[in-house]
């Protein structure tokens, strides 16, 4: 009794507990708020945004930010606080997000939303004003301000299409040392083809720091990036600003403190201003017809590795274009060869030198030429037309014409000359063709199969195989599901088997057996054919069965008489059974089955 009561009490408490859980859950409220460290900041400053989630539960969600308009997210960190007041636990999750402003203006941060256990919590919103770094953009004003800034220098503001522009970024800093740089955003150079140049570094790979005095204030400066740009479109182009995160070590003012530590490290975000470039089109006046877009200063020279050679031998023509400009994009000069000189596609190689801050180099074209007949050949001067942005004129440089003398060919075969392929072809020529084939046995004629009857016959018969399989499967299915059909199909076969047994019995002169088997052959056949119980077909009932199936009376009579004579002979007490009689009855029975087999009803 007590035990069963105890059970009820436990059940009561458990159900009460379950009933209370939803209530206690709904009592858990969450506060979601945000705050910033300052409401006014400059473009090269950074903003610390704190998202706080607090509540009484231990399982609090943490707020995560993926993006925020007008700001770049520089880093996120979370911290947790617990406090127990009067036995009630409350905790706070803080997510600290460092934001870098993208542009100036007055922005609203938030409200943010947080979803927790199906409920949506909305935070407060804040106003933040982003001001320009300093009052104006021009560098002189910039220099008057701040201990850190990123300065950008372009060598010219107005350039020609495909002319080189050099973009240099300097990080200025005054009192402290910079221990690390983090490129947050590289300048966007849309419309330019950019080639990165080296910045001066010492042997250990550190940036070279130099002293620089601006407006009477001493700075350190570091060249952090240098890029060669070649504009590929005309008009006003804008080079985006670069954002750099500098790790700065700030020395402590407390002498005691500095004795023990080297100060603390702080992140400083600096942003360069954007640069506008005006790109001029190449002048259309005085543009030569064969100009293919080369801009810069170039020289051109050509030479051959030999002046005299036998016909059908190879000579290498090397064409070198060197100078400053976009070497990689230099067009291949047009090679006008005498008709009887064969040429391969040139092998093109480039050597680029970027060390001076100007892209320089050499582009070489190596042609393999083969004079086909003996005689004097002259290779026309090769020329390159380029635009020189320094003086603003088009210029043409040319090689001298080269004379080649071909002596008598060393090979007798006039066909041994080469085309296409490249250098592999020369190797191939040293080989003879493969020797003729011999055939042992019959030489078979490879006639096309697909024109021959057997091919299409085979295609057709494969379809027949399919038809056969399909019919077979269908018949098998019917045999399995329809007993009547199965019996009817096998009726004739069973009868034939019986007749064979009867013949055996006849030969052994087992007359009784013979008549029995013959009679059964007939009656079983009829039973199978119309799916009747075997016992129901006897000599007495057979007439009615046949009549039901619209059998001719003549045939019926014949079957009945055949059965009767079998039965008579079988049950006759004695008597001779002549072989002729047996043969006649067997023949008769066979005939009857054959007639019945043709009868379709």
């Amino acid at each position, binding site marked *: 009794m007590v035990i069963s009561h105890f059970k009820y009490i436990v059940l009561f408490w458990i159900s009460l507990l379950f009933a209370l859980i939803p209530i206690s859950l709904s009592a858990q409220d969450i506060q979601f708020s945000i705050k910033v460290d300052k409401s006014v900041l400059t473009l090269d400053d950074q903003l610390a945004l704190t998202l706080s989630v607090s509540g009484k539960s231990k399982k609090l969600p943490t707020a995560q930010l993926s993006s925020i308009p007008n700001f770049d997210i520089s880093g996120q960190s979370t911290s947790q606080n617990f406090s127990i007041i009067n036995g009630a636990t409350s905790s706070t999750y803080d997510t600290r997000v460092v934001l870098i402003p993208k542009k100036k203006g007055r922005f609203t941060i938030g409200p943010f939303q947080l979803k927790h256990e199906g409920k949506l919590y909305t935070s407060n919103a804040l106003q933040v004003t982003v001001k320009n770094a300093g009052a104006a953009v021009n560098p002189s004003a910039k220099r008057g301000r701040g201990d850190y800034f990123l300065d950008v220098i372009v060598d010219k503001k107005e350039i020609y299409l495909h002319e080189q522009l050099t973009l240099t970024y300097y990080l200025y800093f005054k009192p402290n040392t910079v221990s690390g740089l983090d490129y947050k955003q590289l300048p966007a150079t849309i419309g330019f083809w950019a080639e990165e140049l080296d910045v001066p570094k010492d042997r250990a790979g550190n940036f070279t720091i130099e002293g620089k005095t601006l407006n009477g204030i001493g700075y350190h400066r570091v060249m952090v990036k240098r890029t060669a740009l070649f504009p590929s479109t005309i008009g006003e182009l804008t080079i985006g600003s670069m954002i750099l995160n500098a790790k700065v070590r700030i020395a402590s003012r407390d002498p005691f403190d500095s004795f023990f530590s080297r100060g603390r490290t702080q992140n400083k975000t600096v942003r360069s201003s954007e640069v506008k470039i005006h790109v001029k089109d190449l002048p259309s006046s005085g543009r030569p017809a064969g100009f293919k877009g080369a801009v810069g200063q170039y020289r051109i020279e050509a030479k051959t590795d030999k002046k005299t050679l036998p016909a059908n031998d190879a000579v290498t023509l090397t064409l070198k274009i060197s100078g400053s400009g976009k070497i990689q994009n230099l067009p291949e000069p047009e090679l006008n060869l005498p008709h009887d000189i064969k040429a391969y596609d040139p092998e093109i190689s480039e050597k680029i030198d970027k060390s001076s801050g100007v892209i320089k180099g050499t582009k070489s074209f190596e042609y393999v030429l083969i004079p086909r007949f003996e005689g004097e050949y002259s290779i026309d001067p090769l020329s390159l037309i380029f635009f020189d942005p320094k003086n603003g004129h088009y210029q043409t440089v040319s090689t001298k014409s080269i004379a080649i003398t071909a002596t008598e060919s060393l090979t007798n075969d006039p066909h041994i000359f080469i085309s296409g392929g490249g250098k592999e072809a020369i190797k191939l020529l040293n080989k003879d063709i493969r020797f003729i084939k011999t055939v042992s046995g019959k030489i078979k*004629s490879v*006639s096309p199969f697909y024109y021959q009857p057997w091919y299409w016959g085979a295609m057709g018969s494969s379809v027949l195989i399919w038809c056969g399989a399909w019919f077979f499967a269908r018949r098998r299915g019917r045999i399995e599901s329809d007993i009547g059909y199965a019996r009817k199909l096998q009726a004739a076969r069973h009868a034939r088997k019986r007749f064979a047994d009867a013949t055996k019995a006849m030969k052994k002169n087992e007359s009784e057996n013979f008549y029995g088997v013959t009679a059964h052959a007939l009656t079983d056949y009829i039973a199978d054919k119309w799916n009747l119980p075997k016992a129901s077909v006897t000599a007495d009932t057979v007439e009615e069965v046949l009549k039901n199936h619209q059998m001719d009376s003549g045939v019926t009579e014949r079957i009945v008489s055949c059965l009767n004579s079998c039965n008579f002979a079988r049950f006759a007490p004695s008597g001779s059974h002549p072989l002729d009689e047996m043969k006649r009855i067997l023949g008769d029975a066979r005939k009857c089955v054959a007639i019945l087999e043709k009868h379709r009803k």
Partner: protein
Amino acid sequence: MNMQWIRKLLLMSIIWIATNIPVFICAEISLEPQPTGDRIEQLFSEANRAYEQADFERAIEGYENILNYKVINPAVYFNLGNSYFKTNSLGKAILYYEKGFRLSPRDEDILENLTLARVMTVDRVDHAVPGLIANLLTTFYNSFSLNELALISLVAMISVIVFFSLLILTRSPILRRSIWYLTGFGIALLLIFSTTFYVKYDNYHNQTTAIVISPKLDAYPAPIQTTGDVAFTVHEGKKARVLQSREDWAEIELENGWKGWVNQGSLDEI
């Protein structure tokens, strides 16, 4: 149970082989030439002997004679191509190598001599470097002759039908599953090879490709010979597609898309 399964599988393979054997027998029989006795073999060995004695003119005569018997055989084409090559008829040599290549595309002798002959032609062919997939497709396309493609397609067709038939006849689940896989494989094979066959058949029979056999051939913009109006010049051994022909003229198209009318007698169809 397991033994029974193996027996069924064995039976299946026997059915499959038995249905395909007639195809191979027919293919083999259809390769037999018309009854000409040993005449062709005699001509062939005579021509080979002439070639070995460097009497290439006589060798050419002998091989051409064999071709007159309507014999289509890669070895004859190859040897005839070699003989023409040795008599500096580069165009004819390429023509017969190409014919041999069509019949026996994986024959290394033919491939090498054809490459060598092509290298010696005057006209430079600018090959576009194909991508990986295009390269694979071309390799596959070039690896089978039309007869092989036709035969494989037929065997795949019969196999698919046999497998399908077995599928409706058999009841063993394991066997049915393996037959399903085989059927899928067969259908894939059938599709790939019959498509390739169709493309190749179209290329070989519905389009005419010819080789330039005269040393230099001027192409004109219209089928009229006017001096100084030459559209372009091609040289011996160049392959071109024949678009149409009119009297003595044929309009050809080169690989780079250039079209022009040339004298038909300077071309020979592959």
